[in-house]
């Protein structure tokens, strides 16, 4: 009985808060008569989503394609690099301090340079997304590939396991919980990277929609675009979290 009530509460409480906030927002806009260019009412945003649905879906798809492609590329290369670093202490010692430093650097500051180099098409956004997803995955993968219980190491050595067997049978599975922690962060960052890339210079994508509608003072479309990309980002994060739970079923969470 108690558990049921808690479960209901977990779903109902935030939903209720959302509805109350939206109602307050709507009422405030109607009563205060604030210019819809400054703050459109929720009903106006919903209307904008509906009337512009084809365009919004198309442009969200463009941004998500850039983000997902960059995310897969960035995290894939990061994992391969982590495997290389596991076997070469020289390379690892040379690169690791920079990897840790760059992990917490706002790489999105590089967006203008990337647009300059890769043009205002999809390529510069894919590179941006890849770059921001790269470092969290790299650092977590290096930690994970080396987080081996010393007894497991002895067990494998007593069996005379080769380093390839060690990698495939022990290191990679051991690294997965760590890697997924990096992937969760990376997936959100990749969407941010793609949108920032579009802000800087693009002719397509949700970032482009936001900049142009801001230029034409279509604030309701701007809000609509933000909501669309938020949902898409949540879906991507959810997909990564789902994969995490299915693949790393043994990890304590």
């Amino acid at each position, binding site marked *: 009985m108690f558990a049921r009530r808690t479960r209901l509460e977990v779903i109902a409480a935030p939903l209720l808060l959302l509805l109350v906030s939206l109602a307050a927002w709507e009422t405030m806009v109607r009563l205060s008569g604030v210019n819809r260019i400054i703050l459109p009412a929720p009903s106006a945003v919903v209307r904008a989503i509906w009337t512009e649905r084809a365009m919004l879906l198309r442009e969200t798809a463009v941004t998500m394609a850039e983000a997902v492609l960059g995310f897969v590329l960035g995290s894939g290369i990061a994992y391969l690099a982590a495997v290389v670093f596991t076997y070469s202490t020289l390379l690892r010692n040379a690169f690791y301090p920079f990897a840790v430093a760059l992990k917490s650097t706002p790489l999105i500051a590089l967006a203008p340079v990337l647009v300059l180099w890769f043009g205002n098409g999809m390529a510069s956004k894919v590179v941006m997304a890849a770059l921001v997803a790269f470092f969290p995955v790299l650092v977590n993968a290096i930690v994970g590939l080396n987080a081996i219980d010393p*007894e497991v190491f002895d067990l494998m050595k007593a069996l005379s396991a080769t380093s390839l067997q060690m990698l495939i049978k022990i290191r990679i599975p051991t690294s997965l919980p760590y890697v997924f922690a990096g992937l969760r962060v990376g997936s959100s960052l990749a969407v941010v990277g793609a949108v920032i890339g579009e802000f800087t210079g693009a002719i397509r994508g949700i970032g482009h929609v936001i900049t142009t509608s801001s230029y034409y003072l279509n604030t309701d479309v701007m809000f609509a675009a933000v909501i669309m990309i938020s949902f898409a980002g949540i879906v991507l994060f959810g997909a990564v979290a789902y994969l995490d739970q299915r693949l790393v079923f*043994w990890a304590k969470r």
Partner: protein
Amino acid sequence: MVADGTSPVLQLRDVAMSYRTAAREVPALDGITFDVARGEFVSIVGPSGCGKSTLLKLVADLLTPTGGSVVVAGSSAREARLAGMFSFVFQNPVLLPWRTLLGNVRLPIEIVRRKGRTPAEVLALVGLSAFEKLYPRELSGGMQQRAAIARALTYDPDVLLMDEPFGAADELTRDTLNVELMRICEQIGVTVLFVTHSLAEAAYLSDRVVVLSTRPARVAGVVSIPFTRPRAENLRGSVEFQEVVTCLRDALGSK
């Protein structure tokens, strides 16, 4: 599990081991000499921290001794390790959490590729056949340790090295596991080198017990256990058994 009297499978001669710290060299083991015959069950007891586990790792070539030699069936410890002659059981079960019980027990033959007992056979041997599809976290501590023993027997190793395998178990589980281990060893006749700090456990399981002194550890004595096999479970309650344990305690205290 009767020693067959032919050439010993393990020969330790003047084995020494020291660790180098920043300040000086710390000797851990010194002049360790003893043999283990094929099919024999030999325990190593000694004060805690005396280097019992180190000795086991030297035999398995997980560490290299700083002096003396370890000969395994006529070859070096390294050759023996590369030939897959050893298997190890640790104090913790060390099961891989992403593999089922069957998958864990299969691990050694994926690596050693030697003909021997199948995973299904060894799971039957330790009485875990019904649980082969379960994951380690779904099993009790005692079952996990039985699985670790099964894994160590999968590819039919020549020497089974056990480093306080029941040290983390409660007393009841430990007694059950002792009986089980003895039954298994008698059934398959494997050679065992067994590290423990329980004198009763050593007396119950072993053919001979090697007693080590404090650091640097030397062989303080080798005690032959007079009981015939198979040994009954209630042997541990007998007066004769207590006498053997006392004898071991005296050997420990003499140094």
